[in-house]
C-alpha cells in the first residue's frame, strides 16, 4: 500500500501500536494504584478500598473523577509557565521509554508483511532508555523550583542529587550486562534470552548477572522515587515536596506518572534481566499452536512477569522504612558504585578469559 510515497501500512501499524501501548500504560497505572492500596491493606491487616464496585475495582475511576473536579490553584508567586510545564514533562519522560521495549515476538502476516510489536528498534535502545531516565528528573526539579515554596525547593534539590548519584551505579551495572550481550538493541537482548535453558545454563540474564540485577533494581527504585527512596516527597519532612503546591489534575499527572514509571521500569527490568517475553518450553508450544495465539501467549507471559515485578516493588514499599538522607548518599556512593565497579571488572574478566 504505497500512496504519496508513504508506506501507509507502516504509519498505521506504528500509530496503532503506540495508541495501544499508551492506553495499556494508563490502564495498568490506574489499576496499580488500586493494587498498591490493596497490597498495603493486606500487609497491614485491613480491607483496603471496597466501596466502589466489587472489591473496590472502580476506585481508580472515582479517584480520577475526584481529581478532575477539584479546583485548580496556581500560586501567585510561582513562575507560571514552568509551573504548568513541569507535570507534562514528568509524564512525557515517564511514557517515552515504552517506545523501545519489545512487547512480543514479530507477527508474520498472511500478506507476507512482518508486524513488529516494538515501536522503534533503534540500535542504541539501552542508551535511549538511559537518556530518558536521566531526563526524568527535570519534571520534579522544575516543578519544585517554580512552586516558589521552601519545601518544594528542598525536594527538587534532593531529587536532583539523588538521581545523579544513582545514575552512575545504574550505568555501570548496565555496562556489565552489555559486555555479555554484545548489543545495545533491546530486541537483540530479548532474543538472546530465548527459552529458559540452553547449553547447560540458564539463558535469562538474571542468572548471569545476579549482582548486576540487584544494583540495577535498587537504582531503578531510586530513579522512580519509590519508597524507601522517596526522599523527594517524604511527607513527614517535606510535606509532599515537589507537588505540594499542585492541585487538581496537575497533581494527578504527577501521581499517575509515578505509577507509569513503575510499569515501564518493570518492563525494562523484565526485558533486560528476566527473559522478556520468553518462557520455558516456548519452542514446543510454538510448534503446536497457531502463530497468532503464540504471540498472544508471549505477550501475556511478558505482562505476568511485569505484574510480578510491580508486586515486588510494592511489597518493598510497605516493608522497609524510608532512608535518612545521609544514608541514601552513603548507600549510593560508598556501596552501590564500588559493587557495580567490581561486578563490571568480574564480568569483563569472565568474558575475556572464560568465554572467548
Amino acid at each position, binding site marked *: 500500500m504505497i500512496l504519496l510515497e508513504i508506506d501507509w501500512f507502516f504509519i498505521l501499524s506504528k500509530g496503532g501500536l503506540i495508541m495501544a501501548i499508551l492506553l495499556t500504560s494508563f490502564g495498568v497505572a490506574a489499576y496499580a494504584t488500586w493494587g498498591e492500596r490493596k497490597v498495603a491493606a493486606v500487609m497491614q491487616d485491613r480491607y483496603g478500598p471496597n466501596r466502589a464496585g466489587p472489591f473496590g475495582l472502580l476506585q481508580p475511576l472515582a479517584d480520577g473523577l475526584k481529581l478532575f473536579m477539584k479546583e485548580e490553584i496556581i500560586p501567585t508567586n510561582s*513562575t507560571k509557565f*514552568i509551573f504548568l510545564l513541569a507535570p507534562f514533562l514528568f509524564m512525557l519522560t515517564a511514557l517515552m521509554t515504552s517506545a523501545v521495549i519489545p512487547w512480543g515476538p514479530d507477527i508474520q502476516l498472511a500478506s507476507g508483511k512482518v508486524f513488529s510489536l516494538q515501536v522503534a528498534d*533503534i*540500535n*542504541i535502545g539501552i*542508551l*535511549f532508555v*538511559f*537518556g530518558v*531516565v*536521566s*531526563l526524568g*528528573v*527535570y519534571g520534579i*526539579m*522544575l516543578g519544585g*523550583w517554580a512552586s516558589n515554596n521552601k519545601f518544594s*525547593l528542598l525536594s*527538587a*534539590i534532593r531529587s*536532583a*542529587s539523588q*538521581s*545523579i548519584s544513582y*545514575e552512575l551505579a545504574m550505568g555501570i551495572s548496565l555496562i556489565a550486562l552489555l559486555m555479555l550481550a554484545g548489543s*545495545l538493541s533491546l530486541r537483540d537482548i530479548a532474543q538472546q534470552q530465548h527459552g529458559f535453558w540452553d547449553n547447560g545454563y540458564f539463558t535469562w540474564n538474571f542468572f548471569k548477572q545476579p549482582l548486576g540485577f540487584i544494583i540495577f533494581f535498587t537504582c531503578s527504585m531510586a530513579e522512580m522515587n519509590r519508597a524507601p527512596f522517596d526522599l523527594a516527597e517524604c511527607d513527614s519532612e517535606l510535606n509532599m515536596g515537589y507537588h505540594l503546591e499542585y492541585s487538581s489534575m496537575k497533581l494527578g499527572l504527577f501521581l499517575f506518572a509515578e505509577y507509569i514509571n513503575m510499569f515501564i521500569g518493570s518492563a525494562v527490568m523484565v526485558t533486560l534481566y528476566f527473559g522478556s517475553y520468553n518462557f520455558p518450553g516456548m519452542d514446543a508450544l510454538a510448534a503446536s499452536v497457531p502463530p497468532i495465539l503464540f504471540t498472544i501467549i508471549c505477550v501475556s507471559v511478558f505482562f505476568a512477569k511485569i505484574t510480578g515485578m510491580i508486586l515486588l516493588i510494592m511489597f518493598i514499599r510497605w516493608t522497609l522504612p524510608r532512608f535518612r538522607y545521609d544514608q541514601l548518599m552513603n548507600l549510593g556512593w560508598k556501596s552501590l558504585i564500588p559493587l557495580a565497579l567490581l561486578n563490571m571488572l568480574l564480568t569483563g574478566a569472565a568474558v575475556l578469559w572464560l568465554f572467548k
Partner: protein
Amino acid sequence: MDILQIIFWILTVMAIGCALGVVLSRNPVNSVIFLILTFFAISGHYLLLNAQFLAIVNIIVYAGAIMVLFLFVIMLMNLNADTEPQKSWLVQLAGVVSGGTLFLVIIAAISKANLLGVINTETTNIGLIKVLGQVLFKQYVLPFEISSVLFLSAMIGAIVIGKKDME
C-alpha cells in the same frame, strides 16, 4: 525540498534561536532550559548525520547530567532576575570585544577550512557504535586512555579541593 532538508532547517532555527535565548534571557533558570533545548537540537543534527551514538550520549551527558547540576546550583543559590548583579558598561564592553574576537577566529578558521566531501548519510555507518568502538579502541587507544587519566585526575582534584577545610 525533501523531508531531511525540512528537518534540518527546523533544527537549525531551533538551535540558533535557543542559543540566543540562553544569552538574552534575564532569569538563569530560563537560560538553562534554553541550553537544554539547544542540546536537543544539536542531537537532532547528529541523528540526521546518522550518528546515533553521539546524539544519545550528547543528551545523556549534557542534558541529563551536566545541566541537572547547573540547575541544582542555580536553585541552591536561589538566583533569579532580581538578584542578578548589574555590571558596569566597561565590563559589558570587554565581554562584547572578547566574545567578538573569538567569533572572528571561528569564522576565519571555517572560511579557510578544507571541508570534507558530502557523506551520504543513508549509507554511511561511520557514526554507529560498532564502527566508533573499533576506531576508538584500535586506532586511538592511547589518546583515549590518556584523556581518561586526565578526567580521573580532575575528579581527584575536585575531591581534594572540596575536603580542604575538613582537616
